[in-house]
């Protein structure tokens, strides 16, 4: 008798998803899948809208990382208004957008680690779910919880100062930005009363890496083996190979570190990336065309970014990066829980970059926008907190958007997340007849390591609970757990 386990919905993530796990007569896993069961449709209803509306409209597909969509769409519109890609903007336009992006990266990484994932690390994957949550963290680790909240607040304030609002602002417009940073804002971010100043943010970012390092040391086997599997890795890198979260060229490496996508212009992404549709998920499966659907899939996000880049252009994060790289002898890191390590190094990098930018006079004066010969098509790429984000638009002579294609970070990580779920299922559920809560949470831990944001990948509203069901060979439900 075979069984089918359904985890629906997945908790401490944003959006709706479910996991199904099929077991054979001996309760060995024969198939496991992460299904994205919601549908958004932004690609369709942006059609017919004026192109300059896209950066404001499309960001509404997410409440955690709207800035990423705002900026990716704005970058595509830069191309359309003839301002070119990243380098074409005015110094003020480029730097204000970068500050917005690093603020976004900082607040989102803080949210991802402290609010959504730290309960698993602080209490243990199989701890009592009654305390294994953000309220439990607040009760048991108050200082840490406050850090998480204040770090997120700092990032959100940066976003407000650059985009106009903490969520769903309007700062980035085709060809640049619509405001400067004021002296008052600058002074506040640099020298505000503790803890809301940049030096405290850098200090706390470093401390968060120490927290992970300590957890890693105590749980080495789990952290290194949990959902570990070889993969390709893809991200933007700066032209000189540096980590750059805002602009650059597309690079991919294989599991051994060999370059398999050689720093190409992302305007040509369709030459390199294909998308496969499978009938059990609303989320598509991207892959590198050259290597096909079976071999061409790749990871994106913090882990992939630190695997593709050559160095990090900020001193403290670079030091951490060197330790990170040394752990795998310079080879790509293929361990899913190390996403958190990479994420926290990026948190530190974002804080350092914010400090550098805040001290730049270009933020406070200079031309805000630029434009050139109008184009009818543009691609905008950005490294969103969860990974590479593609926005591609075409317009007609009347300024109407006629086509939009969005490949979001979660979509890029579709195959890896499915493999992570499979890995956990095979290692922790195979051979078991009764589902335990810890088992259920382990599957969710794997998904959370990659991405707590499922909704933007399908272009939903609401809560995100997780349900696991057990089905027999004839697909009859025999057990179900839901939290």
């Amino acid at each position, binding site marked *: 008798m075979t069984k089918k386990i359904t985890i629906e919905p997945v908790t401490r993530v944003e959006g709706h998803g479910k996991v199904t796990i099929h077991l054979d007569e001996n309760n060995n896993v024969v198939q496991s899948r992460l299904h994205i069961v919601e549908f958004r449709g932004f690609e369709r209803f942006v059609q*017919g*809208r*004026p192109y*300059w*509306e896209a*950066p*404001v*409209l499309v960001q*509404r597909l997410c409440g955690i990382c709207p800035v990423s969509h705002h900026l990716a769409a704005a970058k595509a519109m830069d191309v359309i*208004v003839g301002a070119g890609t990243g380098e074409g903007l005015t110094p003020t336009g480029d730097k204000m957008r970068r500050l917005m992006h690093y603020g976004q990266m900082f607040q989102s990484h803080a949210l991802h680690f402290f609010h959504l994932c730290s309960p698993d690390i602080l209490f243990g994957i199989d701890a009592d779910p009654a305390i294994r949550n953000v309220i439990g963290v607040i009760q048991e680790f108050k200082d840490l919880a406050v850090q998480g909240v204040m770090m997120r607040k700092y990032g959100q304030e940066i976003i407000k100062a650059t*985009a*106009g*609002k903490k969520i*769903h*602002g*309007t*700062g980035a*417009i*085709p060809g640049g930005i*619509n*405001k400067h940073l004021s002296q008052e804002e600058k002074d506040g971010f640099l020298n505000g009363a503790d803890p809301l100043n940049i030096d405290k943010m850098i200090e706390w970012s470093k401390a968060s890496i120490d927290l992970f390092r300590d957890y890693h040391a105590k749980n080495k086997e789990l952290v290194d083996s949990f959902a570990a599997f070889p993969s390709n890795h893809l991200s933007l890198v700066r032209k000189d190979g540096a980590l750059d979260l805002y602009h650059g060229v597309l690079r991919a490496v294989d599991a051994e570190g060999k370059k398999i996508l050689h720093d190409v212009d992302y305007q040509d992404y369709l030459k390199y990336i294909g998308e496969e549709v499978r009938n059990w998920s609303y989320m598509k499966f991207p892959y590198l065309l050259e290597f096909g659907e079976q071999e061409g899939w790749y990871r994106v996000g913090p882990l992939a970014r630190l695997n593709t880049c050559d160095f990090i252009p900020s001193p403290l994060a670079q030091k951490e990066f060197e330790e990170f790289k040394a752990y795998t002898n310079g080879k790509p890191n293929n361990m899913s829980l190390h996403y958190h390590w990479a994420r926290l190094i990026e948190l530190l990098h974002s804080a350092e970059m914010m400090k550098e930018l805040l001290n730049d006079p270009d933020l406070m004066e200079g031309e805000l*926008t630029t434009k050139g010969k109008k184009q009818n098509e543009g691609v905008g790429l950005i490294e969103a907190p969860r990974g590479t984000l593609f926005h591609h638009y075409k317009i007609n002579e*009347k*300024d*109407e958007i006629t086509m939009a294609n969005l490949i979001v970070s979660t979509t890029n990580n579709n195959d890896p997340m499915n493999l992570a779920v499979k890995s956990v299922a095979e290692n922790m559920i195979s051979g078991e007849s009764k589902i335990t809560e810890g088992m259920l949470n382990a599957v969710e831990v794997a998904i959370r390591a990659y991405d707590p944001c499922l909704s933007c990948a399908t272009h939903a509203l609401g809560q995100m609970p997780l349900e696991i069901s057990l089905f027999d060979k004839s697909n009859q439900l025999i057990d179900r757990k839901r939290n």
Partner: protein
Amino acid sequence: MSEKIKFTIDGKECYAEPGQNVLDAAADNGVYIPSLCHVRGLIPAGSCRICNVKIAGRNMTACTTPVEEGMEIENDTAELQDMRKAIVEMLFVEGNHFCPACEKSGNCELQALAYRFQMMVPRFPYEFPLRKPDSTAPKLWIERNRCIKCKRCVRSIKTADGKNIFAFRKRGHEVEIQIDHELAAQMTDEEAKKAADICPVGSILYKEKGFSEPIGTRKFDKNAIGSDIEKVV
């Protein structure tokens, strides 16, 4: 110089120029009567009905009613305010007003009135009409989803020789704003901007300039609609 006319609004003693309408006269006396279709200097249309006041027991549109000596006007009453709010709600359900992605947000008089009336959810069901925008004009985007048929553009935007650039077409419930494509193609930047500015909602958009005004500096970001009038006197 003609002698001023004495009248009262909610018991407040006010003065008006002869021939002045109630709405403009009220504003000159620091009393805000909400309106969406009226622009001082244009011939009043009385189309939006939001400026309804009560005079001698009758509901009258303040923009089309000349002030008369000794007139006693009711303006800020619960009944009138609720009626005005209901009209604003009707305008919201009758069109497709999605403020989050509208470039007029913060400068939109309909949105500002909804905030002033503390509108939360309209009491009427949404109609979600199918309306097609017209993006043909080189400098203007006509967004019919947001048009409230105030006729401000029809009354004020004309060519140098007096031809209408905007007009209504169709009838009754289906009436919609239309732009003369030939005349629109000849509009200067200044004329196009004027057309976009005169529109109280985001129905006439000056192309390629959306969202260039940062949040915090827009007309109603910090000051409620009408607060400039209420500060006068």
